[in-house]
């Protein structure tokens, strides 16, 4: 893809989801989104109406999270939340999947949960956050297929509050699973234009990040050297490096770490790089 600063900006959901976010921060977020012509602002429900008002008559969408960040509420509550934010002006809804049900292999409940949001979202697009850091690859693939069957528009990697952020590995897996007709949103830990480009190259068509301004501004440096995109140590972008025993179920953590033992790039796996 021949990526320009403008094209990159139009793939970014300019995001603030911290609990301490004030209205002035939302105002700044929306102002920046207009200046840079980002795809959307991604915010908590409480700010939906205010952001919609600020962004009316602009091309910037309002994206609101639902069941966030745990995804552990009921389908009915997610449906109600969706209805509320859509009526407040949300153009897009980023819901968190029922992660526990997915791990229980209660696929019907997972699907029903998503359908309850899709059915109340009206014209708004629905993105389903898998929170990939809680799953092994097979589970991620299965989750993607359920999202597709349930009528979601996008699958999304992470909340930014979970055990892992977006990795090219996961985005590639998700893109391969859902095919070209669905969107794939990478989110969590995207801090630089190199992160962004790698995820786009892996198949993402939307990027959720709170560093959108820096990413776009720093991308202006890209034209002055090809060396920015020189390969890094493979571990830097590998989900196994990011695995965290304190935040992940034991078997998931071990699954990630066991991959390191047989990894052809094992020689690079030092922790002071």
């Amino acid at each position: 893809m021949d990526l320009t600063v403008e094209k990159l900006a139009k793939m970014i959901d300019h995001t603030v989801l911290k609990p301490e976010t004030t209205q002035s921060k939302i105002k700044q977020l929306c102002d920046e989104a207009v200046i840079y012509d980002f795809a959307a602002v991604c915010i908590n429900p409480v700010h939906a109406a205010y952001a919609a008002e600020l962004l009316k008559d602009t091309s910037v969408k309002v994206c609101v999270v639902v069941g966030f960040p745990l995804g552990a509420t009921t389908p009915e509550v997610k449906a109600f939340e969706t209805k509320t934010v859509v009526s407040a002006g949300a153009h897009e809804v980023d819901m968190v999947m029922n992660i526990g049900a997915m791990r229980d292999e209660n696929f019907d409940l997972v699907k029903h949960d998503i359908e309850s949001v899709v059915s109340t979202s009206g014209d708004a697009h629905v993105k389903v956050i898998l929170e990939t850091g809680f799953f092994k690859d097979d589970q991620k693939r299965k989750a993607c297929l359920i999202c597709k069957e349930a009528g979601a528009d996008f699958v999304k990697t992470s909340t930014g509050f979970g055990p892992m952020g977006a990795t090219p590995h996961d985005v590639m897996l998700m893109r391969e699973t859902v095919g070209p007709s669905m969107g794939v949103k990478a989110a969590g830990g995207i801090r630089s234009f190199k992160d962004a480009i790698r995820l786009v190259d892996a198949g993402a068509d939307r990027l959720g990040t709170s560093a959108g301004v820096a990413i776009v501004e720093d991308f202006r440096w890209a034209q002055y050297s090809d060396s920015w995109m020189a390969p890094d140590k493979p571990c830097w972008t590998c989900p196994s490096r990011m695995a965290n025993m304190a935040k992940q179920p034991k078997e998931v953590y071990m699954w990630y770490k066991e991959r390191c033992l047989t990894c052809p790039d094992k020689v690079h796996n030092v922790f002071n790089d």
Partner: protein
Amino acid sequence: MSKSSLYSDAPILHVFLNDKSIRRESLPPDLYEQYLGGRGLGVKLLFDNLAPGTDALSPENLLVFAVGPSTATSVPTAGRFVVITKSPTTGTIFDSHAGGYFGAQLRHAGFAAVVFHGKADTPMYLWINDDNVEIREASKIWGKDTYATTDALLEETDSKAQVACIGPAGENLGLMAAIMTDKHRAAGRGGVGAVMGSKNLKAIVAKGTGEVGVHDPERLKVAVERARRLIKKNAVTDKSLPIYGTPVLVSVVNELGMLPTHNFQEGTFNDAEGVSGEKLLERFSAGTYHCHGCPIGCGRISLIQGKKVGGPEYESLWALGPQCGINDLEWIAIANDKCNLLGLDTISTGSTIGAAMELVEKGKLDAPLKFGDTSGLLDFIDDMAHMRGLGAKMSEGSKRLAERYGAPELAMQVKGLELPAYDPRGVQGHALGYATSNRGGCHLRSYLIGPEVLGFPVLVDRDRPDGKADLVMLYQDLSAAMDCMVVCRFTNFAWTVDDYAEMVSAGTGFELSGRDLLRLGERIYNLERLFNLREGFTAKDDTLPPRFFKPLPEGGSRKRIVHLDEMLPEYYLLRGWDNEGRPTNETLRKLDIPVS
């Protein structure tokens, strides 16, 4: 003089110390267009007017104080000045920069640069009061430290003026003598203070009340608003530097195993936490210091034994601390203040003390110097400024000191300039920057710590040698161009090449793209290279001390060496230089540098 002068209309002030005459010359338009101002202006003046082989401490050397087209405008951080001369320390062309407020005063007084020629027969200082310029007697203040000098001159001239002066180190022609302004901001490196001392020039005092004009104020306003916004959005310029100052780097660099310790014998300092930016904030912070027009405010003010002192900044803290194995933060701040008082470059001072400590450790030198031991060290620093005993030998810098005692390999320097606070084994691109810097061991010609360590604008693998030549060249050229505007290096955490170009375009009326600006920087870099080649430097000087080709024993950069042999040929090729590191005629023509 116009009360709203454009930089292009600002004269160059030539001061002839031999006969105490003064002459104003217009800034030549072609020089302005090709070299802009600041460092570029000074480099061009030296290249054209200094005979090859001139003794840097002779009256024939030129000493240029320059500001740029951005100085004292609304461009953030643009209150700095640059000193350009032939360095007595390195023998190279040299530019040394300082913040503070002096540069803005010089520009408000209406001048683009001041060029000192010759040597006064007795100590003098220059008093620039708007367009009134006087060479004044300075015998009464000769011998005074930089603080007393500053106070005395402000009393004698105008309390609203700004002073750039030397202390005893400069008067005694010490090769690590700095030029100090506002007491604790230094044009520190390369012995520029000694050049000033060699001319019997104690100080310049400047006060200006004129307005500074720009070509397109509205366009500049838009560019500056954007530039300020970017500074506020950047984690380094909006948080790390304002909160901790440059010492924020201590923990980061130590964690990566590249905080030079015990004269670069190790890359990890066990007591790093005790000398960190965090600890400085907790124990001694008494405020921050903003240079003219700076929204960042990285400068530290510390309260030490009831006295407010400037600093210590990262490089100073390292040189007087971990480099010498010293973990006493309070002592480091005191030693730093003493260097400022005496007009000594803290990097070279600390690094040379560290080299002397290793010479003692290796049995090459018999002196009461021991890593980690501060006993008597303040007296050594005093001796270095006053040329007493071993201090006189140390004042010549680590290269000459180590050679004198038969162990040149123990001097951690490039082209005679002591290396700063990053072990190059842990950062390949930065290492190449050290080796190819036109002024010797310097971290600011190409600050690849940004991308290789801090991740600005993006994190690149610090261990990879490939691709680094390209980045070093980019940073060297951009830095040269920034030094023509005379803005602070820290802005490039937040601004892109295009931002600098836009501010230059709006300020000057030259329509420069980012690539045009880099081309301008490249022109300066090549002209400096030609100057150094003319002085006898060769490709053999583009190297590092042998220590860096042996692995670090432990820490976060253990087992690493510098892969200079892989990077240097690629660098020469990209630069358009031949195998001997000489710019080809084609390269010179491309850059509009006359081929001799």
